[in-house]
């Protein structure tokens, strides 16, 4: 009796049973187009239109020649399509503004997520007096409106000789995003069962190795989601870029965009829309990645390889 029950359990799982169940008698009922359903769809279509139309209009404007924009005003369909605006803004702003944005965003994101993960791990795994107070203090740093400390920050940055430098932006973005990174990562760390780390300790690994070999791989989804959020914050940041950097120096993409709105020739609609779309593209891609991560999150993270 013992052997038979064991072999049942050890043998490879069969998928046959599952497939036969799936082809059952249940013919899927076709969704009926009731009045309520149609109304709901109508609302959704209007909503989607309201959301998407500005993007469409940006796209249309970005491919029209400047002359057409200034003479014909806004149109729904471009008279002629040109990529001159794109060529112009990429030539003018790829270096340094776009590159600055990438460097500041990526480096500060890596720093904030790495430090935030370590801080979250420490706060979550080591019990000490006042632990929750420390955690809340860190988060509270994020509650202050940045504008309130903009002037002191500018003075500090100047006095240490980092004015108009990428390093200053990287440091600021790291410091400002660190509390958020720590706070998000904390709940991800909490979801990693502590027994896994204990098992690895017993298996002969030192605590830091356990962190790197067990905890970090299981935090992949958390790290990805946090990194994306923080990168977007850094990418879109305008205030500090404005006060401590200059356009053409360490200034970032949002700063370059602002200069297009205030040029001596009035608002340069075509180049501005082109650059705006370039600025939005990474954000859209990253949000799409977040959605993908979140919908498949469980599989990618805890349980699958």
């Amino acid at each position, binding site marked *: 009796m*013992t052997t038979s029950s064991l072999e049942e359990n*050890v043998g490879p799982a069969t998928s046959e049973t599952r497939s036969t169940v799936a082809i059952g008698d249940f013919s899927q009922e076709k969704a009926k187009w009731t009045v309520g359903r149609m109304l709901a769809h109508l609302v959704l279509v209007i909503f989607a239109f309201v959301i998407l139309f500005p993007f469409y209009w940006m796209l249309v404007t970005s491919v029209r020649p400047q002359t057409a924009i200034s003479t014909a005003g806004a149109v729904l369909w471009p008279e002629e399509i040109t990529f001159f605006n794109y060529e112009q803004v990429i030539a003018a702003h790829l270096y340094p503004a776009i590159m600055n944005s990438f460097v500041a965003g990526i480096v500060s994101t890596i720093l904030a997520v790495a430090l935030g993960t370590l801080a979250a791990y420490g706060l979550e795994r080591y019990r000490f007096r006042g632990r929750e107070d420390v955690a809340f203090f860190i988060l509270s740093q994020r509650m202050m409106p940045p504008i309130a400390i903009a002037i002191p920050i500018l003075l500090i940055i100047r006095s240490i000789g980092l004015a108009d430098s990428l390093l200053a932006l990287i440091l600021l973005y790291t410091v400002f995003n660190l509390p958020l990174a720590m706070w998000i990562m904390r709940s991800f760390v909490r979801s990693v069962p502590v027994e*896994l780390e204990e098992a690895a300790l*017993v*298996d*002969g690994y030192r605590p830091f190795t356990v962190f790197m070999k067990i905890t970090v791989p299981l935090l992949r989804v958390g790290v990805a989601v946090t990194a994306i959020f923080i990168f977007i914050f850094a990418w879109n940041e305008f205030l500090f870029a404005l006060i401590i950097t200059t356009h053409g120096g360490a200034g970032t993409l949002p700063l370059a965009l602002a200069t297009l709105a205030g040029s001596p020739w009035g608002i340069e609609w075509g180049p501005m829309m082109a650059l705006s779309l370039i600025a939005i593209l990474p954000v859209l891609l990253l949000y799409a990645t977040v959605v993908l991560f979140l919908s498949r999150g469980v599989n990618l993270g805890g349980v699958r*390889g």
Partner: protein
Amino acid sequence: MTASAATLTVELRNASKRFGKIQALDEANLAVREGECLVIAGPSGAGKTTLLRLVAGLEKPDSGDVVIEGRTVNKDGAWVRRTGMTFENYALYPHLTVRDNIAFPLRSKAARNSANGKESEESRVRRIAEMLRIEELLDRQTDQLSGGQRQRVSLARCLVREAVVFLLDEPLAHLDAKLRLAMRTEFKRMVSKLNATMIYATHDYREAMALGDRIAVIQEGQIIQVDTPKRIFDQPASLLVARFAGHPPINTIEGSIEGGLVRLSDAGEGAVLGAYSAADDVNFSHGPVIIGVRPMDCTWDGGAGSGLEGIVRAVKVRQDNTGTVLAETGSGLVEATLATSARPQFGDRIDIRIEEDRSLIFDKESERLLGRIVPGASKGAH
């Protein structure tokens, strides 16, 4: 590794551990001999897991010492102690395949340094997987395993390395009844084959009896008795141990010792069961005692018994027509074996016979074992 039969592999010396208000382990003393399987048995929350975690190095004792191979290891981290451990929830690494899970302990720096010239990782993993019959699962992800398979993988990961001691925390607890029984049998085969030192925690007395070379019964953080399964069953140090070992549980009947004779409290004038084994003179007396008799040593044959009367509350008859009767006596419910084909009816008043020489006498206050009843003496006392 030094090896002689009497070597102690693991010792706890007055080890205590407290979590907040709970004294998880209280001055525990324990010596595990090399090559033995010592079962830590006790109800949940008794301190079994804490004891294993102290040995593994996942907890530090508040006071007392943990000694492994003669060396006090209180200050050593878990990673240098060379123990193998299974966790109650298996704790398989979810991002690794079964093969990588099992090989994980072999890949630590310390294990690789000591592995020079020994068996390769691949063959070691394969050998242990074959022993546990999971070789065809090696390339699976852990979320593709059933509960029984997970349990085997966790055992394999524990047993794959050359550990000083293997610590097994309720490894069979979460399996269904049939698989648990099968695994118990198989585990016994493996234990004898591996000839390894093991500490095995369980709350299941059958598991403890079947697997343990010795059993340590633990309750509320205190180790009550450490003995062979046979002695745990025959000479339990306390009522708790007696209740733990045996199913259905031992009957507890109130009595007293007067003039060197053991009497039943609630049987009219007080029926005499026999002479008390440890009475040093004929006038020996002792306050209230508990007489422990296992259901297999209480019988009802339709006639007169030992004067222990009760009202029938339930009759359990098995397939093979043997059975037991549950009767409510002055000492609560008592279960007795039916020694006749006659069946008592619900509400009948019956007189239960007690096998005096198989009874145990416990002090009512401390619940400690006092002695036994001397067979034959009862006849003279009547």
